[in-house]
């Protein structure tokens, strides 16, 4: 069944889009991430212009993360004060990222920057996740207890001033790394057009030692807020959010997310991280191949936005 998208200006198969929403929703529910890094390339692949894809995916992520936030909130598994501080850093980072985005576009090197940052970011983060989870699985196999949380171990992060107690997360850390992490996520998100959940979750676990039980819900609060703001900004400035496309993606996404969350709860945490790491690496390699392999067509055309 074909349906014509009013903003993207092309007909698409409803079931294909719904299926994509369902699949990415499943993944995002399973790992507690937005899934933007999967959805945006998929939409571009089926012929939707990158600008419309990035703008529309933001609203899709807002929907699936809101349903996630609600269910984590009912289980009291999120830390609002931590999320609030991250958000302050995130907004500053977003502003910086958008400025750099504009600068790079003026210089004409935006595409290559986005491509390279996808490759570097996804391959390194995914690689680290794989390596960490494999060693944790091996440790568990050999009989040692997996140490996810070492309360006694203090790194240099814990020596920083302006400490604050986050009751829900049961941590007592300086607000400087919290704001810093928010800043980095906001900055990267603005440049790469992603929510950054897959970066935020490991950062909170490894740097701040936030317990796994609260980390996903808290990360989702941040994703929800930034993506809702992004949708609003894209709609107000570029007029590129396709509500029909967003609606189909959202419905698929929220249904998929529910099944994904159930599947995720059944799987051991280290396996889950290995799977996510492998997926992140796969997307990174896919971007790397695009840069390295000769293109099928050396030429490309794009309608200039000013003529709209």
């Amino acid at each position: 069944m074909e349906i014509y998208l009013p903003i993207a200006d092309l007909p698409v198969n409803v079931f294909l889009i719904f299926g994509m929403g369902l699949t990415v929703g499943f993944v995002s529910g399973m790992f507690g991430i937005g899934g933007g890094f999967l959805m945006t390339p998929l939409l571009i692949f089926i012929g939707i212009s990158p600008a419309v894809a990035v703008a529309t995916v933001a609203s899709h992520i807002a929907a699936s993360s809101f349903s996630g936030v609600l269910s984590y909130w009912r289980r009291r598994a999120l830390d609002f004060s931590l999320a609030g501080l991250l958000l302050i850093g995130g907004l500053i980072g977003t502003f910086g990222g958008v400025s750099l985005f504009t600068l790079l576009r003026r210089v004409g090197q935006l595409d290559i920057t986005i491509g390279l940052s996808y490759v570097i970011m996804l391959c390194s983060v995914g690689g680290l996740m794989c390596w960490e989870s494999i060693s944790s699985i091996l440790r568990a196999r050999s009989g040692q207890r997996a140490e996810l949380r070492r309360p006694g171990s203090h790194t240099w992060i814990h020596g920083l001033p302006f400490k604050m107690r986050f009751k829900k997360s049961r941590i007592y850390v300086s607000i400087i790394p919290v704001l810093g992490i928010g800043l980095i996520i906001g900055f990267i998100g603005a440049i790469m057009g992603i929510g950054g959940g897959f970066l935020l979750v490991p950062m909170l676990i490894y740097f701040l030692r936030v317990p796994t039980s609260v980390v996903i819900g808290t990360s989702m609060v941040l994703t929800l807020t930034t993506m809702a703001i992004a949708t609003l900004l894209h709609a107000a400035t570029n007029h590129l959010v396709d509500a029909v496309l967003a609606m189909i993606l959202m419905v698929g996404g929220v249904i998929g997310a529910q099944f994904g969350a159930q599947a995720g709860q059944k799987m051991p945490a280290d396996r889950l991280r290995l799977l996510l790491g492998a997926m992140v690496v796969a997307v990174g390699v896919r971007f790397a191949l695009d840069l390295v392999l000769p293109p099928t067509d050396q030429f490309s055309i794009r309608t200039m936005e000013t003529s709209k």
Partner: protein
Amino acid sequence: MILRRASAVLAFALALVAPLAPAAAAERIVSSVSTHRVLINSNFTGMDIVLFGTIEPDDGAPPRSGSYDLVATVTGPKESVVTRIKERRLGIWVNTSSREFIEVPSYLAVLSTRPFDQFVSPETRRRLQLGLRSTLLTQRIGPDFADTVRDDPFRMAFLRLKQERKFYVEDTGGVTLLTPTLFRATIPLPAEVPVGDYNIDLRLFVDGAAVARSSSAFQVAKVGFEQFVASSAQHHGVLYGLATVSLALMTGWIASIMFRRD
């Protein structure tokens, strides 16, 4: 004095009318299209428009010895397009240079009865811009705006990519003469057809000379729900954004209630 001025005005008026007189003695094209308004609704997947008409010979003039040839040029709304080329730099493929095509047709279909070289001279072809190769494509070259030579790599790539996406069509058999004076042509509009005003320019050729011309038009517009969404997004961006965000929150909320397990 008054008389002299009146005669001058009369002479001027005659001078204006005079060049038109021979044209009135030639053939006339009467044509129409199957629809003047192409409506894009939610199940639009492209459409064919039929152009049809007759060639009316001039009253009293002796019948022409040669046969008629027709060229229909359909032009969509203007747009500017940037064409880029990728080259290998330090092992990765990057866009190295680009060319801007300024105010070129977003849609262009050239349909004719026969291949152009069989009924017009290359000179006429160039002058009347018959066919994609001969169409004027303004490009920004440094500080200037000009068209390039026909074999310019950017120009050829632009035409090729536009044709691959069905936005540019050249069919040298696209106009059929059903009888010596009755003709018919099909204008294929792809699913991604740009919204706006389309112009059809019809030219009649006899023995290599352009003897008549007529033009007609049609419009491509979004209707109903599609039109509502597109115009709200364009004119009420903030409200549209708020509506989309609330839609997202509603969807998320409904899902969390429907699948609630605790």
